[in-house]
Every structure is written in C-alpha cells, then in structure tokens.
C-alpha cells in the first residue's frame, strides 16, 4: 500500500493576456513508506510545480490543478486551505532550495523551529524549545542552545539548510519533499546534507521525494527515479536499471552530457542539441523530438504514451535507445 498516490496530476497556469501554460501534464507516481523517489529534469520540466501541487502551495488564482493526490487515503487536492494548514508541517514536510528566503529573517531560528512543534504537537513553549534544541543537535548544528537565539543571517548556508531540515522533520512527517536541497551549497557541505538526509530517512522511516537536476545526487539517493521532460514523465526505473540501461534518448542524452570526474580527460562531451525553447507541444507529437537524435517521422505527429516495458519500468518513446538491438536479438 502506497503512502502517497499521485494520479494524473496536471497543473496549468492560465493568464488572460497570454496563452495557457501546461507546467505539469498528467503525472502519476507512488511513494512507499521509507522509500526515496526522485523527480529529475532540467529547468521548466515541471518537477518543482509537482512538489508545490502536492504541498498545496500553488497560488489559487490563475492556477488550474486537476487529478488526484492521495496521502494515506485522504485526498489532498480537495482539502480546504485551513485543513491543509493542519496537515502541512505535520504529515508533510518540505525542504526548499534556498534556505535564506525560506527562513524568516526577523524571527530567531529557535522560535521558527519550536513554533512548528508547539502548533502541531501541542507542547508547551518551554518543552517545544527544548525539543527544538534536541532537533538542531540531531541535524548536526553545534552548540544548539546558542543557535536557537540567532537569526538566519548569522548562520552559514549549510547551517540554514540544517535548520530547515530540522523544521521539516520536527513533527516526524510521513512524507518529506526536498526540492533541490543542496543546489545552493558547496560540494563538501552538500555531502554533509545528503548524508544527513539519508540517515534521517533510515532512522524515521519517512518517505522522501527528492527533486533535483543533478544525476549524481540521484544515483546516490533514490530508489526509484522519474525523469521528467516538458511536464511529463518520460522514463521511470529503479536507479541501477536507469543508469546502467537508460532507454529514453533524453535520459541517455543527459547522462552523456555531464562531465564526469572519473571519465578520461579530453573525451568530448555529447550534448543534447538545442534547448527547451525548441520543444513542440505534446499535442503535436513528442515534445523532445526536435532535439532528439533518435527521432522518427512518427515522433513529430503523435505523442508517445507512457508504457510499461518491464516490471517497474515505464517509458514514453516511439524509438527508444536499444530498440533496434533488442529486435535483432529476438530474431
């Protein structure tokens, strides 16, 4: 039984003077307790909007959200704003990319963490404050009693992100969404934060949705990976499967275009041609087809469906990588 079931989630931004933008287009996935699911893609692929829709954080005006987001049997998309406020922070926690804008600059860190505890766990202010100190200690902030009284500008980037994680985990939510949690951080700090997240997931059994553009982060963190392109899932697989045998040309293209630390020097990168500006709308075919090296005539005419190709593996492509080789093997 899945903890979170996202079914056919679509988000459209409707503006009067401009054409409607379809940011997320029929996305479905499950998250099981204790597992880590990755949403991967480049800017504009809809990964962050997906997470904001699940958290109920999209602005009401000008946004059309359809589909279903089901957390342990209760439908989140139909909750009123007030009901959502009760669930958010308690059952669902979120860690954002930019910890400086996610923290209130004029409220001490300690108060921001203990506020969550007071509100959702009904502790007294004093107990909540003690609990906040314990949490800060748990996420690796040294000297938590002093840090409780400090403001966000007094903390370093890594410390701020830790404080934010402490807030998100204060009520032991069953689902944690981390949206590019380490993108703004230096690599050595990134390593600290990713290790911390892994430990916390293992310790508390919280399910984690990891949103990132960094394939390296995905390779180390996620059980199941969804690759998004132009608002739709184009490939889903277990991480070992995905990295050893990418089937979608976009997934393979991404992997070939990242410079790797362990690749021989001077090896030329194989970039994906063009940019997302070249996309065609899904109605007119595969959005990726203008940039795709594997594109056939059919790709520009009819959008491929997301199909199950093997156990636990989904693919949206007319002419996937390795199709020709597989056919030859069958003959």
């Amino acid at each position, binding site marked *: 039984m899945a903890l979170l079931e996202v079914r056919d989630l679509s988000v459209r931004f409707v503006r009067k003077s401009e054409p409607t933008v379809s940011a997320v287009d029929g996305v479905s996935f499950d998250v099981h307790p204790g597992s880590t699911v990755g949403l991967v893609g480049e800017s504009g692929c809809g990964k962050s909007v997906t997470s904001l829709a699940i958290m109920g954080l999209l602005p009401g005006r000008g946004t059309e959200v359809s589909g279903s987001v089901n957390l342990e049997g209760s439908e989140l998309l139909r909750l009123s704003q007030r009901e959502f406020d009760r669930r958010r922070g308690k059952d669902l926690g979120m860690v954002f990319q930019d910890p400086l804008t996610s923290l209130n600059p004029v409220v001490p860190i300690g108060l921001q963490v203990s506020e969550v505890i007071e509100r959702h766990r009904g502790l007294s202010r004093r107990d909540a404050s003690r609990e906040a100190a314990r949490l800060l200690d748990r996420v690796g902030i040294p000297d938590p009693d002093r840090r409780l009284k400090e403001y966000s500008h007094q903390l370093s980037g890594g410390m701020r992100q830790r404080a934010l994680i402490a807030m998100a985990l204060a009520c032991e939510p069953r689902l944690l969404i981390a949206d590019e949690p380490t993108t703004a951080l230096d690599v050595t700090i990134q390593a600290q934060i990713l290790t911390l997240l892994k430990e916390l997931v293992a310790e508390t059994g919280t399910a984690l949705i990891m949103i990132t553009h960094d*394939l390296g982060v995905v390779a*180390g963190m996620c059980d199941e990976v969804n690759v998004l392109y132009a608002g739709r899932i184009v490939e889903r697989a277990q991480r070992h499967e995905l990295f050893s045998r990418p089937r979608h040309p976009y997934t393979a293209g991404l992997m070939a275009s990242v410079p*790797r630390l362990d690749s021989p020097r001077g090896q030329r990168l194989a970039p994906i*041609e063009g940019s997302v500006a070249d996309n065609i709308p899904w109605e007119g075919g595969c959005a990726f087809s203008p940039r795709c090296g594997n594109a056939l005539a059919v790709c520009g005419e009819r959008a491929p469906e997301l199909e199950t190709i093997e156990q636990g593996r989904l693919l949206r492509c007319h002419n996937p990588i390795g199709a020709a080789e597989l056919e030859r093997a069958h003959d």
Partner: protein
Amino acid sequence: MTDSSRTITGSETSPVGTDPSDPAADSLLEIDDLRVHFPIKRGIVLDRTVGHVYAVDGVSLRVGRGETYGLVGESGCGKSTLGKAVLRLERPTGGSIRFDGTDMAGMSGEPLRRMRRRMQMVFQDTLSSLDPRQSVESLLVEGMRAHGLDKGGESTERELRELLSSVGLPSSALRKYPHEFSGGQRQRIGIARALAVRPDLVVADEPVSALDVSVQAQVLNLLEDLQEEFGLTYLVIAHDLAVVRHVARRIGVMYLGGLVEESDSDVLYEQPLHPYTRALLSAVPVPEPEVEDRRERILLSGDLPSPASPPTGCRFHTRCPWRQPTRCDSERPELRDVGGGHRVACHYAEEIRDGIITPNSGE
C-alpha cells in the same frame, strides 16, 4: 607590429619573446605571491580599518601559453577575486602579476587599457553581464571600437558575422537583444564579446554553472573548439570539479585564499595528496549508482572559517581529518613540489599518501 608596440609601451616593458633562456618564457601569465586584502571599515565620520578580509593571500601560479588552467574551490576561497586581480579589476595588495613578460603591478592609464585588450573575461551570470538595452551588434562592436579594431562598414560587418558563426549563432542575432536568447545562447554572446577584441587570455569565471546540464556540454565543447581555432589561453574558475577536470590540463585547488594543491588534472584525480582535495573529490556525486554505493565520503566537519580571521598555521587544520598535534596549527605549510610538478601545501603529504597517517589518528 613589433615596432609600433615598442614605441607605445616604451622602455619599461620588454618586447614580445623576452629571454629564451628564461624557464618561464613560455608562460603567458605568471602570478607570484599575489595578495588581495579587503579592508573592513567601521565608523560613521572617521573610517577606521578594523581588520582585513584575506581574500587572496599569497598565491603563486603559472599559466602556459595555449594551456587551460583550472582553478577550483568552494565559495569564499578567493578564486573569483584572483581572476579579477589578473585583469586588474581588483587592485592587488601585494605580489606580482606578469602577463606575457610584462609586470602589470605598476601599470595604469593607457598602457593598462591597451594591455586589457589581450585579456578578457567571461562571466557566470549572462543576464546581468550583458547590457539589456544594447543589441548584440552594439555589444560586440563596443570593445572593438574602444581598441581601434573597428574598421567600419563591410569589414566590421563581415568580422561580426564570422565571430557569431564561430560561437554557433546565426548572423540574424546581431539585431536582437540579450533577453531574446536562452541562457546557453546568451553565454555564447558573452564568449563572442570576449573574443571580439582578439585576446590571448580568457578568464572564464563559472562559465557554465548557471546553465542546464544539457546546455553546459554545448558551451564546454564550444570553449574547446575556440581554443583550438584562436590559440587561446584559458583560466577557468569553477566550483564544479568535474567541469574543471574536463576542460583543464592543470588544476589548482584553493582553500581560504591560498593554493593548497596544484598538479596535472589526471594526477590530481588519481592521487590527490592534500586532505582538502581528497575531501572535495570524495564529495562530488558521480552519476553511477555502483560508484555511489561503494564510495566512502570524507565528511568535513563544520563550515569554512571566516577569511577575515583565518586559522593559524595551516588554514585547513580546523577541519582536517588528518590533523596532527604538531606543526599543523602553528606553521603555515608552503606549496612544495613533491615530484613531477605536483605541488601540495601540507606538512604531512607523503605520510598521508603512504598511509602512515590515517584520518583522526592524531586525536
């Protein structure tokens, strides 16, 4: 050409080529003991200097002609300040910068302006480094005009078209404005602008870190092609080790204002000697689950100390897992050659390499 340059630069600069017996004759850029300190000021009426931020504190390095030198480090290590000091966009506090044999330290006014034609910069943020109200044509011509390279009419037109095609943009781009392009295309314009004055040295400060991964690769390949086509020398500054390793033959690692290790990029990757380099390399995620599952991260404790009050002795000793009870906190290690041009600033580099000292055994 030699004649005219001599009359302009006068006697204080040596002509191109200098002394062939000089071992550094083929290096285009020589930095010696470079220091850039920023004063911290207090007070409303009277400015009192209460301290200094030691952004760059004693860095020496050489960049050979036609070479790509990669400078890596995390935020606050001084790598960008160093890049700016090379172009004299920051005034060095001390040390010397020699460009093509000419000491830049005493330069100012017209000679400096002329010198700057030969060194250009490519910035990270393409949106803020290109004037939104200038068309691409005007952006590109501006530098050429300032250095008297704009011959006007047909020839300039042709030159601009060639320039754009070499960075992979259509000539229709000339009449457009920066906002009409995607991030990757804007970076191409930024590169074209740098190349418009035919520089010898290009300092690229985080040239791809604002771009999507699929576009990053396009720009990195472009930089390689242009180097071959125009015989450029690059100083690439980046936080991403994988990017730097991909483009650079030699890599320098900076920590808190100083160079801690420098070597050939393959050697640096295969056998990092400085504890900081080791930690940095072990922290970079690799897009391969098998590698990620097996890897042992060297986790550094805590954050970067403030460059306004750097730790005594080795600047890394406060976070170093290999820290020893003696020397580390009292004596600042010099960058020394441990063989084959591999330079490292650590008292115990050999012991760490040979496994005599293991992490945390010093505590």
